[in-house]
């Protein structure tokens, strides 16, 4: 039997990080807030209330559309999508239908070193619904005595992005979402957090034999992390293959990913499409985004992640891996540029950012701008490392001290009791001689030619550096050791 390949398309909902909701002035900063504390007649859908479009949300969505090379429609319409559910206060969602904000774009993913274009079918804006809290074990609907509704999320702007079924593996799906998340963060349009639900991914997956027909597609929901997305799609791919191998047919349905059991579970059959009775919302005149605004927003786009990455490779001579780590976050990429501009050598800056600085940023969950060390001091520290005035070990201590006490480089060195003068010449020679004497066995082994990889010399060098509290030039130490041996 020939191998089935997966055909995957994604539907991604991104909560925009606007200050106010899509159609009213309520704050979107509701995480952790008291239920129903961020509401007004409009997002509660009270009788007589009317929506007014949040222009910033439009701006954010256009920004995203342009970054994905979509065609932005200058004339778009908001539709009402009707269905009854307690979290939907008007019993319709204001969304977009046949005239979405943008269409026909693409986003490139890197699949094992090869660039792969995923086409974007459409991008549109809509409002989020509220949240149901079920009073049953595990917060499930089944078996709940009653349910509570929290409308804080109701009306939060959502950007829906739909891809073409261009994704050919679960890993690629994960890579795509990861790129998309990086992009929304670069553009500052969303925090892109999957765990908190700022970024939600539904996947459509079917399988087909190469050159064969597309199979019946299954929609998979409830993946709350990149890992869950990949696992769910892998599971679903295997499941569909198994169904086929048994000679059974795949049912068109929606399946929920259960992270605990690692399985997808059928939730409802999609044989009959729901009739949402779409029609243009008469409360909202057609939205006109004029060409001038689009051109302006295009000009204002920041350098995009892949552009920065390519520039780091071509201008800084970094490897693809290094460049990808450095450009994963825009704040970090900006810091890299900043340090280099301030005279830090590329290699040192790249190494330090990828290790020490990223560690601190991750540990403290802060952005590079929030780092208490001013960039010029950081650059100063790195150039001292580069000139050999500080060993890496000493520099790390200085870095930690600068962070801890908000000191500049010189004060941190003083506070650590490191003299600012460089240990060299006969003073250094004396220490080298002493260390060699104390480690006569190692010296003998080196003389006997048993240090082909130079590890033993490095070992001695390390001891000398420690003795000098890192104030010697490691290269000078190394040449002194070699001359003495």
């Amino acid at each position: 039997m020939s191998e089935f390949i997966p055909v995957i398309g994604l539907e991604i909902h991104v909560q925009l990080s606007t200050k106010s909701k899509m159609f009213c002035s309520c704050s979107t900063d509701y995480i952790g807030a008291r239920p129903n504390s961020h509401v007004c007649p409009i997002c509660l859908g009270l009788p007589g209330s009317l929506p007014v479009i949040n222009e910033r949300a439009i701006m954010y969505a256009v920004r995203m559309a342009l970054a994905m090379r979509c065609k932005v429609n200058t004339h778009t319409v908001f539709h009402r999508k009707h269905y009854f559910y307690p979290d939907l206060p008007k019993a319709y969602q204001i969304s977009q239908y046949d005239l979405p904000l943008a269409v026909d774009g693409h986003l490139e993913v890197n699949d094992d070193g090869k660039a792969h274009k995923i086409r974007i079918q459409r991008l549109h804006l809509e409002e989020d619904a509220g949240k149901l809290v079920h009073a049953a074990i595990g917060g499930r609907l089944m078996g709940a005595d009653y349910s509570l509704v929290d409308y804080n999320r109701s009306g939060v702007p959502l950007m829906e992005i739909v891809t073409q079924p261009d994704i050919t593996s679960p890993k690629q799906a994960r890579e795509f979402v990861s790129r998309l998340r990086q992009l929304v963060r670069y553009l500052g349009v969303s925090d892109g957090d999957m765990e908190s639900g700022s970024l939600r991914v539904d996947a459509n997956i079917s399988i087909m034999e190469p050159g064969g027909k597309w199979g019946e597609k299954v929609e998979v929901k409830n993946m709350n992390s990149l890992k869950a997305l990949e696992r769910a799609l892998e599971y679903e791919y295997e499941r569909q293959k198994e169904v086929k191998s048994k000679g059974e047919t795949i049912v068109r349905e929606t399946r929920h990913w259960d992270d605990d059991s690692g399985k997808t579970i059928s939730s409802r059959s999609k044989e009959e499409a729901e009739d949402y009775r779409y029609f243009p919302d008469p409360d909202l005149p057609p939205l006109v985004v004029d060409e001038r605004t689009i051109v302006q927003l295009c000009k204002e786009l920041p350098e995009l992640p892949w552009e920065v990455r390519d520039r780091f490779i071509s201008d800084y001579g970094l490897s693809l891996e290094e460049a990808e780590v450095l450009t994963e976050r825009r704040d970090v990429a900006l810091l890299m540029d900043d340090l280099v501009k301030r005279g830090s050598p590329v290699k040192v800056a790249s190494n330090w950012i990828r290790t020490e600085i990223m560690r601190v940023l991750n540990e403290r969950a802060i952005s590079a701008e929030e780092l208490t060390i001013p960039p010029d001091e950081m650059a100063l520290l790195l150039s001292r490392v580069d000139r050999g005035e500080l060993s890496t070990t000493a520099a790390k201590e200085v870095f930690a001290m600068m962070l801890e006490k908000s000191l500049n480089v010189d004060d941190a060195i003083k506070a650590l009791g490191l003299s600012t003068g460089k240990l060299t010449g006969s003073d250094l020679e004396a220490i080298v001689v002493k260390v060699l004497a104390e480690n006569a066995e190692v010296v003998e082994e080196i003389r006997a030619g048993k240090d082909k990889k130079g590890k033993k010399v490095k070992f001695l060098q390390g001891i000398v550096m420690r003795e000098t509290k890192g104030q010697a030039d490691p290269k000078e130490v190394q040449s002194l050791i070699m001359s003495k041996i």
Partner: protein
Amino acid sequence: MKNSEFLKLSALELVEGYKKGDFTVSDVIETALEHIEVNERNLNALITPLYEEARSRSWMLDAALARGEELGSLFGVPVVVKDNITVDGVRTTCGSRMLENWISPYSAHVVECLERAGAVIIGKANMDEFAMGSSTEFSAFGPALNPWDLSRVPGGSSGGSAASVAAGYAPIALGSDTGGSIRQPAAFCGVYGLKPTYGLVSRFGLIAFASSLDQIGPFARSLKDVAAILQVISEPDARDATCTRKERPNYAEFLNVTSLEGFKVGYLAGYESLEIDDEIKRAISQTIEICKEAGAEIVEVDLPISTRYGLPCYYTIAPAEASSNLARFDGVQYGFSVVADDLKELYLKSRGSGFGPEVKRRILIGTFVLGSSRYDAYYLQAQKVRQLIIREFNAAFSKADVLITPATPTLPFKRGEKLTDPVKAYMADLFTIPVNLAGLPALSMRASMSQSGLPVGVQLIGKKFGEGDILKAASVIEQVVGPAATALGGDRK
């Protein structure tokens, strides 16, 4: 002045009287409230009279008067507001069981405007449920009656507002008009009723029936009052995306005319042969004659598409929007709710018992025409017809400044007369509906009294934002036929 005389004064006369110190706000409000209390037993024009609220506000306003504060343009004027317009802290029922106990936590834009101008809201007016009807008989709170003849309907859906103004509860009232709901009851009750251009008055706080057609407008017994209240409520409002930011003219200025020299008045070709009441035909020709004598050029216009397809077009679009707008009344968050075993039953029972028959009929029609397999054949088709109607009116207004047409095909009909045949009832809106479809302004006014003592109304239609032209022509007509009269208890049949 006898206190009962207050009831016959116009809004502007009341403001004048306060300024001169002839009487106080509490004198007027107290008189109005007593009058209401006596007459409500018969008329049922109000769903919720606001005795306490109006009293305490009148004392507050008298204090402001005593302090010599600057007075708003509607200072101390009693106003009745249709019960589909929200007032903060007051229940807003829409004439429906569904919202029988719903207290609005916010005020409509027009209510804020009225209050800023110093008006006193004395009651929430009876209406056909969710503004669907032409007789106010579809109110869940019992029918309102016509103050000129208690055996007849006051029209609808703003029947309570029109009856209130005719009966002297208040010199002015607010209604809403989706297909004639201000103009038809104004004609039936012999008062002025203006439906402004779509987008002139903010709909924020108006409980939607059909969003692309709904417009709030005033009732009054004098044109000066119409202009004054329109000035107040047409203040631009960013909370309604369909509300224009255009600068509003000073409406009172259009009333200072005696001549219609250089003005063109159009009339419907062949109206004489239409199936309308003879007295209405006579009123039309008299009105045209008045305009002609004032120097207007009289032209004939043709509106075949509007007359033939207006009704079906309207009865596709309006129910479609209504089915959507009324979907939110699901028994979950507010309003009428039935205890049920599961969600679906909650929806079915709450909506099944909360809505009355006419509302259900229109929700069914609307749900049907919006179905994805029928959308193109019904809703989309109706939208195309609507465009043709707009074009037809544009052509008519290239020939005329205002059009004079019947407001209704008949005089006020008897109670119960049209309850059984919805299509017959829908015909009552034949002349008013195309105006909503085209988004135009139109005024309904009393042109004469019938031999049987009933008001006979005519309709003046203007071009988009042509409220000024309407007021101009109406002013000339008012100078001849006089302002609207009150049907106080004694004047009644």
